[in-house]
């Protein structure tokens, strides 16, 4: 096991940031912690990167205990915090050289590992890091976290604030890194990114709701979900919530996701109810369950 977390709890004053969390990450796995802001993802990262002590429980990273062998862990992990944490007044190249040096290596030595990522920002290597765009900053931060060839890579919300194209590229890079045998623990509030992980843990209020393969998680969803659309989405939402058979109703992109309490639910009936409520351009369609739906269901 590359990462093993057993019954970790951590509270700050009155808030239980992490509450009895356990999970394991296999070697070479791309594992995702999926949850909204404030779910406790960052705290888990900080405990695993030896920055915080857990109140209860034990954890090991790359076979080292996070409390007793913290020095070993600091040699063998790459960490990319949620906030952009590079030196803004240093150039791209200086940042990379700096991180290579403090880990006792050089850019040349591990260039192969970061090549795919670094070539994209290399044209700007003399630009100050503060002047880079969000996507390029992420690439530089990832390069810096990788430059010492870590066994385990911790990425705390790496794609927050990054444009969709860069996000997609970023995940492709993670996939390639994974093939090089690096274990990756990544957190994200974006449910669509969860499907790209090998396994995910859905987390909320410091508790893990479910751990599984993203495809499995979706499969276990109990009922059918309907995409519903109408001219006035807000009124539609209110009307659906008032509908006596409704089980769950929440906005999802340009649609409203709806599930019904009854097993023998007939969309036609709902259509009539909505028409009776003066809704226009009503559209009701069965849709595929996503991880977000599962999350909403579990978090209920």
């Amino acid at each position, binding site marked *: 096991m590359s990462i093993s977390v057993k019954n970790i709890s951590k509270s700050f004053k009155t808030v239980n940031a992490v509450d009895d969390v356990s999970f394991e990450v296999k070697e070479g796995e791309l594992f995702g912690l999926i949850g909204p802001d404030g779910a406790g993802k960052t705290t888990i990262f900080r405990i695993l990167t030896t920055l*915080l002590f857990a109140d209860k429980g034990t954890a090991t990273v790359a076979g080292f205990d996070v409390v007793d062998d913290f020095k070993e862990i600091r040699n063998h992990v790459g960490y990319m915090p949620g906030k952009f*944490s590079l030196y803004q007044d240093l150039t791209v190249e*200086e940042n990379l050289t700096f*991180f290579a040096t403090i880990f006792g290596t050089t850019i040349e030595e591990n260039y192969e590992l970061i090549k795919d990522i670094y070539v994209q920002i290399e044209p700007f290597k003399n630009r100050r890091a503060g002047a880079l765009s969000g996507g390029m900053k992420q690439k530089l931060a990832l390069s810096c976290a990788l430059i010492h060839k870590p066994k385990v890579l911790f990425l705390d919300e790496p794609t927050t604030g990054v444009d969709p194209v860069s996000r997609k590229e970023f995940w492709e890079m993670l996939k390639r890194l994974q093939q090089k045998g690096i274990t990756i623990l990544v957190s994200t509030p974006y449910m669509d990114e969860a499907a790209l992980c090998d396994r995910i843990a859905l987390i909320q209020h410091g508790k893990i709701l479910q751990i599984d393969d993203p495809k499995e998680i979706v499969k276990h969803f109990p009922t059918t979900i309907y995409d519903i659309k109408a001219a006035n989405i807000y009124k539609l939402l209110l009307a659906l919530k008032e509908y006596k058979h409704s089980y769950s109703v929440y906005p999802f992109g340009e649609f409203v996701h709806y599930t019904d309490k009854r097993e023998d639910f007939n969309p036609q009936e709902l259509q009539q109810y909505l028409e009776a409520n003066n809704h226009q351009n009503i559209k009701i369609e069965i849709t595929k369950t996503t991880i977000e739906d599962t999350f909403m269901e579990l978090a209920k």
Partner: protein
Amino acid sequence: MKRFIGFVKKEFYHIFRDKRSLFILFGMPIAQILLFGFAITNEINNVDIAIFDKSNDATTQEIIHKIAASKYFSIKQHITNEAEIETVFQKGKVLAVLVFEKDFKKNLTKENSAKVHIITDATDPNTANSITNYISAIIGSYRQEINKNVNFEYQIETKSRMVYNPELKSVFMFVPGVMTIILMLVSAMMTSISITREKELGTMEILLVSPLKPFQVIVGKVIPYIFLSIINAIVIVLLSIFIFKMPIQGSLFLLALESVLFIITSLSLGILISTVSATQQTAMMISLMGLMLPTILLSGFIFPIASMPLPLQIISNIIPAKWFIIILKGIMLKGVGLYFIWKETLILAGMTLFFIALSVKKYKIRLE
């Protein structure tokens, strides 16, 4: 070692790319020393005074001439009645009025005593004091002149000699003080800010999750500032020698060593501040309020420690600057060797060790 050098290199990048800090680092010492040297001074020069001579005889004329001839006073105005005294003061035209009593010469020759009245504007007590002393001195010397041929049987004559700073140049007093303040400010404030900046920007988080050891981070932060502070000290000494003609009586080598010691004391204070503050602003406020003010007020730089109330005198002992100023004055003005200042040196060294030990203990290798 390579890691450490890489870290120090990065620190130099930070310093040289931050124009504002650079300005503070090198502009401030020059500005301060020039300000204190030229503008802020206790000496009096060409003070405007008024004369109210009720007797207007040969003796008073002679005294007035003597006063007018000195470079300290210029006689702005002669007044003729009592009421005018108040008016000239209120208009702020003069800082002192000299009143000679009626029949000055007659009283002097017949009764062996005549009175002169010095009225000063004491809104600025220091200046008022100096004016009184200077005028008394001039009149005193005149009295000795006319008594030259008279023999008194018992006479106590006081002769004073100002040693180490015979011309009483206040810049000589300010140079050690300014040097102390600048070294303190540069070393303590800049290091504490540069360490807290890493905390604030989140880079500390990455540095912690790296094989860099805490002392490597701290020493790496401190080395560039030792270097810069030494340059500052050299600039200040050169300025005081070449612009203010201040003689350095003692050994330059000892001066350099003691300065390095004080720089390290200040740096260790800076590290200590950074371990207790989370943001650059806090670090700056603590440095300014907690270090600068006591250094200026309680170190004996501006206000003599001997004339402070006892509790403040006791507190002044824990101000490192006090000891450094004693050392500096000793070396610069008195030309003493280590033999006379070993006690102060030892106190500074002890303080440094204490601060370093405390910071190492307080330095967090984790986030909480």
